[in-house]
């Protein structure tokens, strides 16, 4: 690592996140004086207003320029989506984890200016005014979460067109569509014109933002005494004057071009999962190859540029969340998850020299952001997997590993062309997407164990003291397991319907109230369709529901069947009572349920069948349903930190889990339930049909001792290859010891650098809540002894 990168990296690590009111103030000023204009144009003009006025920041020595806020980690807010209250600001400022320092100026601006204007105009406020009681009651009970409650849809990834065409090339496409509009025969022509004009203005906003940087950097260059830095600054100024308007000419310009587009997307709206370059190694390789051959770039310089690029991601914490959103996603990371390897459009192996370079960058940088993964195909060379495993073994949670062949299979099953599927990958945590062509919106997590609890209570939620589901009968009177299953299936169906009904409202509200013209330009086929990203303009429009806790739910079903109906160890009334009592006074029964129940994760067909059954039902109840913008629903299995939140609102469960402790994460077995080692976990996890999902998440924790030496590395690689042969989607490894984690809990100041894999991402262990820390320690250590 060069001295420059070492310094930039350390600065990024040392900076504390702050809340910046700059964007909120600018938006308020714009909207107070807003011109009369159709909505897409109004949004584009507000975006121009921001990009023309926001403060610029150039870090000494940096090679890639541009920040989202007025300084690194100065994080903007989006009052048009979610207007924080003064109380929210106090919580953000003072809470122990994931806090944002807020100064008096920002507080005053919020009190006097931002809150009075946006309080009743924000999407969040309007949304909660529209959603029906059945939705709100289920939401408050913790049956599901809602992604668009504080942040905008987004959940998408760039493809290669921004490098090849530049924004001017995309504007030329807009102009062609504008010229072709036929007001006589196309009855939507007026609307389309406003959409296209809005997109054009939005592209101008980002081009002008880049030019402002060019001018600022040129001024710095003129004043620079050091000739080496002066030359660098002149080069940066020239790049910023050229990209992202025009096609990138060099490796360096390609990175700078992406970065301006990235800032455009995440400044326009607070998109979930921010934005991501996706298949970065594929996009950069042509530039890299050309310049290496021409002798205008060295491998070392390319690496330094990539490392400077990495720092830029780490400088942008996820904008402040509160309430349930903070609980379901309690992290600074904003889920930009760079793919490496995979396949090319023609189906051939995509691993190239930049792939290996990026792996070295991941290894050396060890930053929270960006997240990274490898896309491993059966065609990928073993060397690629080995190099990745060498990094994984170091134990800070990156990169995670995806099965590129399954990613393609899943996308094709959903209806994507095979070429679009091969040029896609995964983003956020584990979600598959056709990069640059798909809007794949995560609508919210769904609490499977909570539905078990509600079923055990005849549709009543003991915590919120409301009848939230249908009356499906008192389980104490059930005489067969099938009766319980049927009651559970009906509750599941009810809450999925409630969730989707709410999502329809939210989807329509975003489509009509909150266009995203800049994101639309870079997502095919919004220009061709002259329709906004949020209104179904993309080539593919997908909505996901993410069921959480299949392990805990399956173990609970297994416990009921095994102990009550198969073996008569306990009666249904006694089990229901023990669960309602949170097992207080029923410890012997709880031990039986914990220790003597066939559980998911042990290659035990009895228990695994329940996960398959759940997945079947969820697929049948969700997959293929239509949203109001022409979107199609699918299922995927990830939990971010939501398994902790869902556990905290869920009473005890028949698997012996106490009330309020976390439920299982992703498709991983319940914490401590897997006792037959990693091969058994993999066998169990592969019994569900991954091809019918949009991604699954499997977490495995290893102690370093297990993976020592060349043999340990080989076996890790073999484990991955075998899981992928069994059509698994994704696996990730935590390589740490429980002792290390406990020590970090006791003395966080000594372990601040300890990064662990949480769910679909890694996080600093010391930034996690105590509950989540405990949960990670609890996850079965796959020890070999």
């Amino acid at each position, binding site marked *: 690592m060069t001295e420059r990168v070492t310094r930039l990296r350390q600065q990024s690590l040392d900076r504390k996140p702050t809340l910046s009111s700059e964007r909120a103030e600018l938006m308020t000023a714009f909207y107070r004086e807003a011109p009369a204009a159709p909505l897409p144009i109004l949004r584009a003009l507000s975006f121009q207003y921001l990009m023309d006025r926001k403060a610029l920041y150039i870090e000494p020595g940096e090679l890639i320029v541009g920040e989202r806020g007025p300084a690194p980690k100065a994080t903007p807010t989006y009052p048009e989506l979610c207007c924080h209250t003064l109380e929210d600001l106090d919580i953000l400022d003072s809470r122990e984890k994931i806090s944002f320092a807020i100064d008096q100026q920002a507080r005053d601006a919020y009190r006097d200016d931002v809150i009075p204007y946006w309080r009743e105009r924000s999407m969040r406020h309007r949304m909660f005014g529209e959603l029906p009681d059945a939705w709100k009651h289920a939401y408050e009970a913790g049956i599901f979460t809602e992604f668009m409650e504080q942040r905008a849809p987004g959940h998408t990834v760039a493809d290669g067109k921004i490098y090849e065409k530049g924004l001017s090339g995309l504007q030329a496409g807009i102009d062609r569509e504008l010229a072709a509009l036929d007001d006589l025969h196309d009855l939507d022509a007026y609307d389309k014109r406003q959409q296209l004009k809005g997109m054009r203005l939005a592209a101008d906003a980002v081009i002008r933002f880049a030019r402002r940087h060019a001018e600022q950097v040129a001024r710095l260059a003129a004043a620079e005494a050091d000739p080496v830095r002066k030359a660098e600054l002149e080069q940066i100024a020239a790049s910023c004057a050229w990209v992202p308007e025009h096609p990138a000419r060099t490796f360096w310009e390609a990175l700078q071009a992406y970065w301006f587009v990235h800032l455009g997307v995440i400044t326009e709206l607070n998109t979930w999962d921010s934005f991501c370059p996706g298949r970065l190694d594929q996009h950069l390789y042509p530039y890299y190859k050309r310049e290496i051959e021409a002798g205008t770039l060295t491998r070392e310089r390319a690496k330094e540029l990539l490392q400077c690029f990495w720092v830029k991601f780490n400088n942008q914490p996820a904008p402040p969340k509160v309430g349930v959103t903070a609980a379901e996603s309690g992290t600074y990371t904003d889920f930009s998850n760079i793919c490496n390897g995979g396949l090319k459009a023609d189906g051939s192996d995509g691993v190239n020299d930049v792939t290996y370079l990026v792996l070295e960058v991941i290894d050396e940088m060890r930053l929270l952001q960006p997240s990274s993964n490898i896309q491993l195909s059966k065609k990928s060379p073993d060397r690629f997997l080995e190099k990745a495993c060498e990094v994984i073994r170091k134990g800070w949670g990156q990169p995670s590993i995806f099965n590129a062949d399954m990613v393609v299979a899943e996308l094709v099953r959903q209806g994507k062309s095979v070429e679009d599927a091969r040029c896609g990958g995964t983003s956020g945590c584990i979600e598959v997407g056709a990069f640059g062509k798909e809007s794949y919106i995560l609508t919210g997590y769904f609490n499977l164990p909570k539905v078990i609890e509600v079923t055990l209570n005849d549709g009543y939620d003991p915590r919120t003291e409301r009848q939230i589901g249908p009356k499906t009968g008192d389980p104490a009177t059930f005489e067969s397991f099938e009766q319980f299953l049927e009651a559970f299936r009906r509750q599941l169906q009810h809450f999925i319907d409630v969730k989707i009904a709410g999502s329809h409202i939210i989807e329509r509200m975003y489509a009509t109230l909150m266009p995203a013209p800049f994101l639309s330009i870079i997502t095919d086929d919004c220009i061709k369709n002259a329709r906004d990203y949020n209104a179904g303009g993309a080539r593919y429009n997908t909505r996901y529901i993410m069921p959480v806790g299949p392990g805990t739910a399956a173990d609970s079903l297994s416990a009921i069947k095994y102990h009550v109906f198969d073996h008569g160890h306990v009666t249904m009334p006694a089990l229901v009572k023990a669960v309602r009592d949170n097992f207080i006074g029923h410890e012997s029964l709880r*031990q039986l349920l914990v220790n*003597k129940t066939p559980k998911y994760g042990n290659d035990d067909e009895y228990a695994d069948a329940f996960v398959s059954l759940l997945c079947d039902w969820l697929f049948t109840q969700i997959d293929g349903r239509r949203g109001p913008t022409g979107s199609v629903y699918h299922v995927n299995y990830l939990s971010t930190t939501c398994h902790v939140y869902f556990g905290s609102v869920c009473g005890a469960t028949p698997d012996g889990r106490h009330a309020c402790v976390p439920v299982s994460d992703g498709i991983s077995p319940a914490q401590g339930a897997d*006792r037959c080692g*990693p091969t*058994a976990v993999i066998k169990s996890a592969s019994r569900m049909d991954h091809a019918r999902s949009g991604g699954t998440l499997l977490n495995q924790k290893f102690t370093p001792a297990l993976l020592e030496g060349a*043999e340990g590395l080989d076996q890790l690689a*073999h484990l991955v290859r075998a899981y992928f042969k069994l059509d698994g989607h994704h696996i990730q490894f935590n390589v740490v010891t429980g002792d290390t984690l406990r020590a970090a809990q006791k003395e966080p100041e000594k372990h601040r650098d300890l990064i662990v894999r949480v769910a679909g991402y890694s996080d600093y262990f010391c930034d996690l809540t105590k509950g989540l820390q405990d949960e990670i320690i609890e996850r079965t250590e796959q020890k070999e002894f």
Partner: protein
Amino acid sequence: MTCATWTDPAFLGIPVAEGRILRIERFAIHDGPGIRTTVFLKGCPLRCAWCHSPESQLLQPEFMPKPERCIRCLGCTTACPHHAVQPAADKGPIAPDACDTCGACTQACPTGARELVGRTMSVDALMAEIERDRIFYDESEGGVTFSGGEPLMQPAFLLDMVRSCRASAIHVAVDTCGHADTGALLEVARDADLFLFDLKMMDEERHLAYTGSSNVRILQNLERLAAVHSNILVRFPLIPGVNDDDKNVRETGAFLSALRLTRVDVLPYHRAGMAKYDRLQRPYPLADTQPPTADLQAHVVRLLEEYGLIVRPGGSS
């Protein structure tokens, strides 16, 4: 790692006692090449003072309670038809004459505190367990390792298993102490792909003192085996104060240098088995022995290498 399904009461119903199995460990990656399933057969002719697996020594099933798990629910005492047991937390002895290891107490125990180690299993049932991880063997060029105890204590069963694995194209390793019937050993050698052969020390009297048996047959067996089998990995457990002296190491090197071997692994003594003695309520014979230092290990490796052997330090036994 003890598999949960293994202690599941469902397994207690297996009728035909063909093999006595201690446990089955999946994702074993230190018992031969690749990802393996190691089948530990119960029963061993030796009583090594440093044994880290004392529960493997007897052929019969035995109790290995985990007192820290016991919640004193008294399920076990109620279930026992012979009134032979007390709650595991009390650490009291089981009445040996009354207990017929019927397993009623382990079934009744909700916490797993009362664990019975040792089961009988048919060849078919064991093959089915082994087959579970076939995809991992295929991927990693792994397979199955028969260990113990001493797998050759049950020669007919072992031979059946080795032949079944061969017929199913599963790579087989046999981990043996060498104290076995020579004919059985050579018969197994016809179908086993790899031997992990433990060689503890060369002096017969000390061997007798530390393991309860002479090493004459062990040394002879290793010579006989090396004459017919081309893939033997000798494992030398390095135990300070027992077999780490230069004389023993040199004699070992000299003996092995005359044989056709794949490799010699020097396995440092560790104390991970101590807790098991506690659970079995037996004294731990080497209570004062510490693991060898890195310097000692390096020294022993160097000495052995002087005899032209391929030696690998470290690893776990």
